[in-house]
């Protein structure tokens, strides 16, 4: 990040290569289409680029990046809501992220569907913890929240997922 702030193109390339995949998954987990997730990723990178002077080297980079990503997602959601309130719906449904990404193992696919069905705030915490590999403290910073609130959301999400998975496995038997 420091090299990126000093305008090193190699540092920028490395950052885009390393951080884009989990960011894309983060956007994909917000139940938007694949194309929308890619658009959000590009928008997020532009915001990261314009805000790069606000990153401090003494701080961890992930909460900073995900705080920007979170605002990008929320703004896109608000914009979509505004547009949807003005447009007439047609029969065609938008494509879904899980239909276009490489298929995972059946149990992983089931878990992905269950995660997608979680409430927005819980899904966001799960994606940051498990996909981005952030700590509770880092997620709290990225979501402008407290560690206690993040723990509570994660706990509720785990309980819902565990219950749903138990039910699924029971049905499979």
């Amino acid at each position, binding site marked *: 990040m420091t090299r990126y702030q000093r305008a090193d193109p190699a540092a920028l390339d490395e950052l885009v290569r390393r951080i884009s995949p989990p960011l894309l998954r983060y956007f994909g987990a917000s139940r938007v289409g694949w194309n929308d997730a890619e658009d959000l990723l*590009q928008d997020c990178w532009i915001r990261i680029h314009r805000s790069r002077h606000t990153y*401090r080297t003494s701080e961890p980079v992930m909460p900073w990046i995900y705080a920007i990503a979170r605002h990008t997602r929320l703004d896109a959601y608000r914009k979509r809501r505004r547009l949807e309130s003005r447009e007439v719906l047609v029969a065609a449904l938008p494509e879904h992220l899980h239909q276009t990404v490489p298929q995972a193992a059946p149990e992983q696919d089931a878990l992905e569907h269950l995660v997608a069905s979680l409430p927005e705030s819980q899904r966001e915490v799960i994606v940051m913890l498990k996909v981005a590999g952030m700590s509770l403290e880092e997620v709290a910073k990225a979501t402008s929240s407290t560690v206690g609130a993040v723990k509570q959301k994660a706990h509720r999400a785990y309980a819902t997922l565990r219950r749903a*998975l138990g039910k699924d496995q029971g049905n499979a038997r």
Partner: protein
Amino acid sequence: MQDSPQDAAFERQLETWGASQSDAELSPEIRRKVQGILTSSLTPVKPLPSQSRLTLAFLAVFVACTVGLIAIMDKAGFHLMTEAQMASMAAILAGGGILFSLIVAWDMVPGSRQRFPLSLVLALSGFGVLGGIALLFPWRTSGAFVSEGWPCAVMELMIAVPGAAVFWLLARRGALFGGAGVGAAVGGLAVVLALAVLQFRCMFQQAPHLLVWHGGTAAILIGLGALIGEWRRDRWMP
């Protein structure tokens, strides 16, 4: 976190899912497009100062504006207040200035650890100012409540608006994503500045006047700040 074998299996499943998600590949065209856009405007940037220095910058402007405006304006309130009233109100308003400065400084840097939320600062400042006025000042009114009151409301507006513009210019050095939250925090800081100046200027040091014309106007101005922040969100976002 979990003890039973089922819980351990669930945790493993979740970890595997997380790892498989983060391995997802980004299409080369998108990566090239992103890199192309960013590389074309890649210039060295100077990182923002530390959180404490940003907070101090806001506080310095707050103190300088308050002292400067009190010095050049009428000081009728200064002579009408008792020492206890003056010390208590100065402490409450200084506390509000510090808390709002901290909030605005946190808002400037994405992913900052916010040790307390804006809602708590608004509640504390509101209770502090209104409670202080209700307890410290006499409960009496003169006959000309409205005609004595509205000039104070106008004066508060005339101090708060340029104050908010100055604080907003300072805050714009960061990355403001907050919308309504940023608007309310910047507005709150400007309103505390206006309240401090008015407290020493106003010649009607009675609780009903201070609560309605000073406190009430302050609440409306903070609300307006939040509305403007939300309305102009797209304009000042990075």
